[in-house]
């Protein structure tokens, strides 16, 4: 089982992984690549990952979520490779009998992911330049740009 994918995330398939007749509430989070406005000229983000570690980390985050909300079912996919503006780089789906658990488990997973995964982003611009984005949100000149 890998939580990483190089292809657009199929939300229907992710929902199907966790839904069942006992699920009353489902919370989905989609993180999408933003354009940053015309001035930025961002057309996509290239995601690179330490695949095996990112997969292991996501597995640990899901295990934590399941331990906290035993009645919830949670699934996650994270994109790697080039993700165009408006496409989802991450999708999290949490179902539970009641909505509070679904919201809380979903929120828990995205907050844990944002604490840091071994995944790195390079912004690709219309003019052909590319810059790594570090945690602080400040672009770092890339060697190849």
């Amino acid at each position: 089982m890998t939580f990483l994918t190089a292809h657009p995330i199929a939300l229907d398939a992710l929902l199907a992984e966790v839904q069942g007749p006992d699920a009353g509430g489902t919370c989905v989070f989609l993180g999408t690549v933003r354009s940053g406005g015309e001035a930025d000229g961002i057309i996509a983000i290239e995601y690179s990952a330490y695949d095996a570690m990112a997969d292991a980390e996501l597995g640990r985050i899901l295990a934590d979520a399941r331990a906290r909300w035993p009645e919830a079912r949670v699934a996650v996919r994270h994109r790697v490779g080039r993700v165009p503006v408006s496409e989802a780089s991450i999708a999290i789906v949490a179902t539970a009998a009641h909505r509070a658990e679904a919201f809380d488990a979903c929120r828990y997973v995205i907050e844990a992911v944002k604490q840091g995964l071994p995944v790195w982003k390079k912004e690709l611009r219309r003019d052909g330049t590319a810059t790594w984005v570090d945690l602080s949100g400040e672009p770092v000149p890339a060697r190849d740009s």
Partner: protein
Amino acid sequence: MATVHVRFFARYAELTGTATTAVTVPVNATVSDVLHHVRDIIPGAATLPPRPLAALNLRQVRLTATVRDGDEVAFLPPLAGG
């Protein structure tokens, strides 16, 4: 002696000009020792920050963690995700 697999990611792979290497270090060497060794053998590694994030066998560790033969050590730019 212990042979350790070393990986660089994202900007660090660009700085070092390599994604992977292997180094041989004494028994009971630390991740920090591995980093010093890497700086000696890979010119571009001099531009890595003094104390980068590190992972040992897919888990983030302090630079003081001890490595064993066959371990995988990775040096990681600030983590993002999501």
